[in-house]
């Protein structure tokens, strides 16, 4: 594969309330076992991209720990490189912490490679895709920039605040606007691009000169007439995690095996870091249905339609419904949870009832004791 992989980060319209305060979006746990970034990074390494730059907006510790040197993801230990890059000096205000600013600060790690192409993609879109197909389409179409998009009929609810593309018949992008939820059907930009590396560098530098507040997607929108920008339709399962509500909904959707099968394919493994937890033990009192459960748990209570992360303890008498319980949490006897998101290491023991809704799940903070 002759492309450099660049994993970009989301802009500030994408915030996952609560969870996002403790770690960057790519490091948020997903579906009990994964972290958000596992999907895009596995897509890249499975496509044969062996040279990856992961840009991190803030709090890089989580990503360093989780990704390591990338060998778990199939990055070759000798020939491959995975670099986690971030603005080493703090920005005078968070608003200046744009993807463009981070590319500029780390430009030498983009310039000093020989790959003629770049694949740029953020981690907060969840999908599985072979980038070889995209590069082939890019070369066939003679486009300057290929941008990935997904068709949705649910744009009033999903992909809010994402960019929507206007496409001509030949798939050329003629305009880019925000999805404010006013139309049902949209072509949503996945903020993932393929182009020549030299063009990428040129656009980054132009954006930096244009405004310190510019994001890469802004400069792409600016050049739709000057450059040939062509859409590439990603047909499988695509989701965007840009709010607590969407995070909750997407996790719940993928709990269902028939939906999960649209995303997970046996010939396209999604890699993640193993923690060597033992299998999960269900006691005689456990009552479980419609749920996804990671390893290392002890389950004595009742739960349904939920996602349970690693090493969670659910005591006898606890009832968990339609909830996401993260790694190392504890749900005590008598606790009743419905539509809740319980962050890592939280202990829910004295509270009797926590009830949220699909649109506004209750969030229990990391390390909280309630």
């Amino acid at each position, binding site marked *: 594969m002759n492309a450099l992989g660049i994993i970009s980060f989301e802009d500030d319209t994408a915030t996952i309330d609560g969870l996002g305060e403790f770690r960057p979006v790519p490091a948020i746990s997903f579906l*009990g076992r994964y972290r958000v970034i596992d999907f895009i990074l596995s897509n890249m390494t499975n496509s044969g991209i062996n040279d990856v730059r992961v840009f991190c907006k803030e709090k890089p510790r989580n990503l360093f720990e989780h990704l390591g040197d990338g060998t778990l993801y199939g990055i070759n230990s000798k020939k491959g490189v995975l670099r986690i890059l971030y603005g080493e000096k703090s920005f005078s205000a968070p608003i200046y912490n744009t993807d463009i600013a981070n590319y500029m600060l780390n430009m030498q790690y983009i310039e000093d490679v020989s790959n003629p192409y770049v694949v740029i993609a953020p981690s907060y879109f969840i999908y599985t895709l072979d980038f070889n197909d995209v590069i082939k389409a890019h070369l066939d179409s003679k486009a300057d920039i290929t941008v990935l998009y997904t068709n949705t009929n649910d744009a009033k609810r999903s992909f809010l605040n994402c960019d929507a593309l206007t496409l001509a018949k030949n798939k050329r992008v003629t305009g880019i606007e925000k999805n404010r939820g006013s139309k049902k059907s949209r072509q949503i930009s996945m903020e993932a691009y393929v182009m020549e590396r030299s063009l990428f560098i040129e656009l980054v530098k132009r954006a930096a000169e244009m405004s310190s507040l510019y994001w890469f997607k802004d400069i792409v929108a600016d050049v739709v007439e000057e450059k040939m920008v062509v859409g590439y339709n990603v047909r499988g399962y695509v989701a965007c995690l840009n709010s607590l509500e969407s995070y909750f909904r997407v996790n719940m959707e993928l709990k269902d095996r028939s939906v999960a099968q649209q995303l997970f394919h046996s010939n396209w493994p999604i890699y993640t870091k193993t923690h060597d937890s033992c299998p999960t*033990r*269900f006691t005689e009192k456990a009552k479980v*249905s419609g749920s996804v*459960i990671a*390893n*290392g748990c002890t389950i004595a209570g009742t739960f349904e339609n939920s996602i349970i992360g690693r090493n969670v303890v659910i005591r006898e008498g606890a009832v968990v419904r339609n909830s996401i319980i993260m790694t190392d949490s504890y749900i005590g006897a008598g606790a009743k949870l419905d539509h809740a998101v319980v962050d890592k290491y939280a202990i829910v023991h004295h509270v009797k009832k926590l009830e949220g809704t699909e649109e506004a799940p209750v969030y229990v903070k990391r390390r909280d004791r309630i």
Partner: protein
Amino acid sequence: MRSNNVVAMILAGGRGTRLFDLTKKVAKPAVHFGGKYRIIDFPLSNCANSDISTVGVLTQYESVLLNAYVARDHNWGLDVRDGGVYVLTPREKDQASFEVYQGTADAITQNIDFLDNLDPEYLVILSGDHIYKMNYATMLAYHRVKGADATIAVREVPLKEATRFGIMNADEDDRIYEFEEKPAQPKSNLASMGIYIFTYKTLRKYLMADVKNPESNHDFGKDIIPAYLNDKKKLFAYHFNGYWKDVGTVDSLWEANMDLLYDNNELDLSDPDWKIYTEDINALPQYIGPEGKVENSYITQGAVVMGSVKNSVLGTNCVIDKGAKVIDSVIMPGAHICENAVVTRCIVADDIVVGAGKKVGHKDSEHIELVAKDTE
């Protein structure tokens, strides 16, 4: 870390004939246990947790899978500088006829060049067939304090069962004065666990003498230990009281799996300070379907339960279809129990399909049924 002066050698060449078809294509140490593990994960993880980072694995019977498996030493954190897992199979040598390993001692003798290169002070000999957690560093400290030539780990067994084991007779100071292999009238109940620590220099002399002895079986229990005793060498018994199980039969393999189902089970695989490591398999977390039912069971990632499961252990990526019932059974990785099938008191081998509506095993059976062929 600079590697210390200890080398462990795991004897993993045995077929395990009493496991029948489970070991038709793989050696016994590669047989699955506890949903996600293989038996050899236990000695390998014990070595890693005991800070023994140079481990030779002696393989022979159906070793292709096992060799590839243990060679991935990073899975147990044994990929350290100056250490690692070394796969040692019988090999052709200059000026000698090609021989498979004739016995446990011969397996070591045939690799004496490997050990001489490492020049360890102590050699830990382990078996690849047992389920247990043990700190070999503690046993080594005991060996040093006693100034022993050899230390043998022992556990107390009920006297009436002692006839099935190699029995150590020791004085009050735990110095062994006699060893009896499967005695008809046992004098003590201290059974050898097949775990030895030897001071290497002494052992080397005995191995070199043993190889020249045409009468010898080249076996630690039958030949080397008796030779030590004959010469009044210092042999000590090291008492081990924790969980230990030889999973050499279908019944005992099943029992050891069932031991995992209970609260505070002695084996406790959830101890964060003594993790049992295994290969990293890409699998989704387990899924219990809307009509799934799970009671008193031990289930690992990748398992899909659409039917009902009771008192059972489910392996990686196994599938229990709608209407299927699994009771008192061990389902190994990749097995598929189809709609309305009923599995009772069975071990279902890896990747086996139990066809729709089939019934295997019986709740009152004397022995556990091994299902190692697809039933369509």
